[in-house]
């Protein structure tokens, strides 16, 4: 039997070190597998593998030790069950996500919903180099978006409604980054230190801290591998209904600026994050409430944010 390894790879069959054995890669949808799917995977692992699955770092599951003679049978069975196989090679990979606002008490955005939407549009798309996308519901960044080529991080901008403030000083104490100080009995915020996770908003007894903009910070240029690099912010406060469009813009900017063999991280390292940002040219929503100086993140300090959050 002649084997077309590229065809196999597309279908999630990866060559194993041992001759004539394959690893079959499955993917989850934004990190969730139903109990039904888990039972099906367990059965497949018993039938075709060695009775175990390997849980991948990208929220997938792999069944190793599938013999070459079982390839057709197993492929048919996977298809009939409707299980999703993964991909590899120069394609957009499974979009991973943290649990997000749906269940996480810290969540600012519905990271899973966003990831499912992005996955539907981008998964498997052929690109010059492998491209990974991750979505986190808040700056705690549990899905490690800064380690991906493209990362989305839920964020909220705190705005002070001074008339409501009772001057209790709780916000100063709850801020994990000492971004708030009390001056003449009222809080003032240092926007450069604020990580946009909104603890001041969710703690304030009088609701003096309110939500300004809420959306995703869009990171680009993260990767792990042999030379790890953290992504940097290339767009801010992307609303839920514009995530696909904004990711498309990042891919487009990469397409315009990249040289052969580069991943987004390499391109940004060569041209600088400012040039990349300018190419992405995301205008997004402007805050109407915010009265302070222009958000420090729109300038050259974006690199620092990448480091801080990472």
């Amino acid at each position, binding site marked *: 039997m002649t084997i077309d390894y590229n065809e196999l790879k597309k279908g999630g069959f990866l060559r194993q070190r041992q001759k004539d054995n394959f690893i079959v890669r499955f993917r989850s949808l934004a990190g969730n597998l139903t109990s039904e799917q888990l039972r099906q995977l367990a059965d497949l692992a018993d039938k075709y593998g060695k009775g175990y699955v390997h849980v991948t770092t990208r929220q997938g599951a792999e069944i190793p030790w599938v013999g070459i003679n079982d390839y057709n049978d197993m492929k048919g069975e996977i298809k009939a069950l409707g299980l999703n196989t993964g991909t590899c090679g120069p394609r957009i990979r499974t979009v991973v996500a943290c649990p997000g606002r749906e269940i996480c*008490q810290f969540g600012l955005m519905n990271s899973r919903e966003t990831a499912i939407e992005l996955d539907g549009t981008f998964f498997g798309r052929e690109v010059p180099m492998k491209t990974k996308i991750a979505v986190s519901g808040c700056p705690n960044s549990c899905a490690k978006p800064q380690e991906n080529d493209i990362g989305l991080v839920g964020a909220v901008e705190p705005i002070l409604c001074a008339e409501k403030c009772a001057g*209790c*000083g*709780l916000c100063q*104490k*709850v*801020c*994990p980054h000492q971004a708030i100080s009390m001056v003449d009995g009222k809080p003032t915020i240092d926007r450069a230190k604020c990580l946009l996770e909104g*603890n001041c908003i*969710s*703690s*304030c*007894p009088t609701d003096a801290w309110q939500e300004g903009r809420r959306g995703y910070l869009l990171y680009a240029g993260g990767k792990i591998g042999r030379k790890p690099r953290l992504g940097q912010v290339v767009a801010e406060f992307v609303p839920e209904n514009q995530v696909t469009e904004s990711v498309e813009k990042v891919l487009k900017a990469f397409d315009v600026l990249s040289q052969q063999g580069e991943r987004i991280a390499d391109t940004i390292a060569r041209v600088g994050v400012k040039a990349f940002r300018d190419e992405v040219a995301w205008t997004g929503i402007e805050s109407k409430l915010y009265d302070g100086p222009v958000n420090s993140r729109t300038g050259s300090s974006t690199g620092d944010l990448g480091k801080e959050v990472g």
Partner: protein
Amino acid sequence: MENLKIDAELDITADVCPITFVKTKLKLEQMQRGEILEVVLNDGEPIQNVPRSVKGEGHKIILVEKRGENYRLLIERGE
């Protein structure tokens, strides 16, 4: 503020997350709406997380003050 009637007291300075909030929540649940609980808690992680969780459960923080190394919170039991 200081002539508020305190109905119950709780010291969570010996506890860590998530027991800090769990104890606070349980205590509040035993109280009546409008009653006031005094909580003494540590700086750092407890002061960053307990107030947000208390507010998230619909109670009202009416006072925060530093007390030596620790903090003192007065919480009014909500619905």
